[in-house]
């Protein structure tokens, strides 16, 4: 290709004069180019192909009964939104790759191609759009993340002790202890009742004091969206309000030695009355 060869679509009829700003005029012209148009169409097509991922991802997370708490709901919303907003940009990049691979000119063989491609050293408009768009996107993700983080921090009672929470006297305190390779749950409000299955009442704030007797473990209440390290010599605190009755999983999420894989147990979220009777039957004495 040389300068003298006509541009591929110069046959377009000249546009009637309008009072649209020249930038709009240029953008419209650009969109008319076959190359640009094909990539835009491809972007939309790929975008729609990727779209189901938003739901599939959440469905995979829900396989064992999640979400069982407002925290897990927040997490799933976040994952859903992040998938959604990253689809357009991913689709665009994939569209450029696919079009370059399948839709554009190729040469193969050992010879260095005789024809060079157009020397586009930069494109101010393109670069600006990309920078602004990606910065806005990043800002959106950050702001969203900060708000959700504030929300789940509030939902897990942050650093405020359980007694000072609204309705604090009703909050249930559970002391979680990890040791190689079992979890122990202690209910200090119920005469120090202990259990190796985590029984929780539905719709009541629960407050966890987490620690370890030996190495690092990580207390992961999967369907409740709770996760925090169990550190020897320190107590980490978090909390949750289960809002769904059922059987869920605790898994250790930090390598803790030989039987790390087996360091898991069940969570039973019970209706409040059922929880109270469990406490009584297990000799937990006074219910709060």
């Amino acid at each position, binding site marked *: 290709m*040389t*300068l003298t060869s*006509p541009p*591929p679509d*110069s046959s377009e009829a000249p546009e009637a004069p309008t009072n649209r700003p020249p930038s709009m005029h240029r953008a419209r*012209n650009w969109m008319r*180019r076959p*190359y640009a148009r094909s990539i835009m169409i491809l972007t939309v097509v790929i975008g729609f192909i990727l779209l189901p991922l938003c739901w599939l991802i959440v469905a*995979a*997370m829900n396989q064992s009964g999640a979400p069982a708490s407002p*925290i897990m709901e*927040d*997490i799933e919303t*976040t*994952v859903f939104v*992040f*998938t959604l907003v990253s689809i357009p940009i991913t689709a*665009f*990049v*994939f569209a450029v*790759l696919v079009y370059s691979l399948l839709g554009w*000119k190729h*040469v*193969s063989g050992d010879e*260095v191609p005789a024809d*060079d*491609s*157009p*020397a*586009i*050293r*930069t*494109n101010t408009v*393109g*670069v600006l759009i*990309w*920078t602004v768009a*990606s910065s806005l996107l*990043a800002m959106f*993700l950050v702001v969203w993340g*900060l708000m959700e*983080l504030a*929300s789940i*921090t509030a939902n897990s009672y*942050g650093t405020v002790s359980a007694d000072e929470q609204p309705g604090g006297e009703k909050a249930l305190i559970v002391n979680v202890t990890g040791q190689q390779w079992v979890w122990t749950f202690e209910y200090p409000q119920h005469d120090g009742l202990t259990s190796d299955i985590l029984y929780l009442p539905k719709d009541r704030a629960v407050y966890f004091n987490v620690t370890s007797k030996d190495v*690092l473990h990580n207390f992961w209440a999967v369907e409740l*969206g709770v996760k925090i*390290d169990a*550190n*020897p*010599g*320190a107590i*980490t605190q978090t909390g949750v309000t289960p809002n769904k009755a059922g059987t869920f999983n605790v*898994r250790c*999420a930090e*390598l803790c030695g*030989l039987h*790390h*894989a*087996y360091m898991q147990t069940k969570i039973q979220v019970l209706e409040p009355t059922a929880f109270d009777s469990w406490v009584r039957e297990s000799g937990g004495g006074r219910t709060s």
Partner: protein
Amino acid sequence: MTTATSTLEASSSTVFGVEVPQPPQHGKPGGIMRHLNFGTGLLTGIVFAVAAGWITSALSSSSATNDTFAPTEPEYIYLAGLIGWVIGFMLGMGAFVGPLRWVTGRDLTHADAEYMAGKDLGIRRYFKFTTDHKVVGIQYLVVVLGILGLGGLLAMLIRTELGATWTEVFSPTFYNTIIGTHGIAMVIGMIVVMSGPVGNFIVPMMIGARDMAFPRLNALSLWLLVAAVVCLISSMFVGGIQDGWSVYYPLAAQAPPGMLGYQLTIIVFAVSTGIASVNLMTTILTMRAKGMTWSRTPILVFGVFAASLMGLYAFPFYQYSQILALTDRIWDTVFFNPVQGGSVWLYENLFWLLGHPEVYVILIPSMAVALEIMPVFLRRPLFSFNFAVAGIVGVVALSGLVWAHHMYMTGWAPAVNYPFMLSTEMISIPVGFLVLVAIGTFWRATVWTRLPLMAIYAVVFNKMIGGVTGVYLSDVPADQYFHGSMFVVAHFHYMLMGAGLFGAMGGIAFYFPKMTGRILDERIGSIGLWTAFAGFQITFGSMFVAGLQGQPRRVLQFDDMFNISNWISTIGAYVIGIGMLIFLAAIIYSWRSGEVASSNPWGSKSLEWQTPTPVPLENFAVLPVVTERPYNYGVPDPYEAELEAEDGDRTSDDRERAGVS
């Protein structure tokens, strides 16, 4: 001028037409270096290791204490053996000959230096402490292929265990060992996979230099790497690295002596990378050809420089963390043991201060090599060179400010999760610049479909997936679900393997003709690459699913609900294994009997391709002068011509309308 009174007469040599006075020549050129090679290195290393171990065992009276974590006698023996090995091996290789001769007043002459650069040594120079950057580059390539091969083999074992959901194929001890060893072997391999072979062989030629700034340090960094890898392998025979590649405290305190192997590997490897980084950076800063201003410097040089810079500040943290861990273990210091007043969080901080920059040390050279390949095969300049540089600078600037995103769930300091989430998500902006440059260069370009370029399609594809999932992980609420799960493992494999390793495969294919004089077989190579790519999507795609379902990482058994995704993942892993073997076969076959390459088979305009193949000892007989920007390919853009014409029309229209005529 007196007459010669002895054979040790000071002489002079002519170096590139300049008379250079020389210290007296002692004996034949090379002196003792004539007798030292890999064999003597191994021998001395083993002798020293055995001697050190024996002395230690003789000295240490049974120092039994009641403390359960107290080191046992075998620990001391193993540690002494390792230290003996490293020192002995380096001694036997001849690493200390230069400084020793300088101290004793018998400094190296030009003839000695030429001997050490491998002049007229033929194949033997690859087994010696050779200073020529091209020899070091080839040595690095072979060592790296070995390390990655080991890591790959272990990966197959891991996946075998995870696929056989109905039984325990390996004992938990062995399983934990292969996870940790796979992790650290792959990390070491990927850190050097581009900066080693390409950084040493190609970069000096690319900037128009005759060698690296410090040729002997160059050889030193390579052989230290070899010494470190032997420490790593030895650890597998004394209990292995059972605590993942991150070896968190206090679990690591319970570990068998293999942990010492890990610690010594890291300490030695950090020295090796430090030396290599300083060498590369000095070379790039001071030895660029006349006229090679920063905007005329190829992007790969920026990438290698950036990786060296990040390595230089990040590795000391890692090295200190392991030195402190070593003293905790051997001399009962208390840095990390929380029960006695140490802090596990201190360890985690030190580790991730390296750990995060390290991923960019792996990624940036691969991205840069991708951007180096694209202009050549798309026959056009890089889309926005400045933006690519800005992307690299941005990544380097932010890379040191994000480490605590690995500690969101530790409870260390929940309040800092906010700023670290901010800085981490900001990194997607400069990384986005690099993606923009890549797709901008693909935009409307005719594609010369050769293997090196085809690998770059794979890189950009994988990088997008790794990047998007990385944004999930940088978000604290989402990480509260994903941290410590298989999702994380799938994410970082998309980055380190999908982008890093596939980019490196492209880079090796690209530079293969210059490095070996032969073309990497296009057909076998492509079959290998695309088989591995397909297997890769299967393996790590379904690993994402396992993570979403809630499977923790580093487990050898799991609930039945994870079976299907793990079966699929394991099948994919075997496909990767087959693909990688085919690619390796392509390398070996082409190296031995591939099609002989011309000196510039890709028609590149970069300096490294202007040298003859095989490249002569000092690369350039006459040093080149650079007069233009890199990637000056391409024809004027027809669309731009159209636009200009249009603009011209409009202005004349406007003038008419305004009646100016």
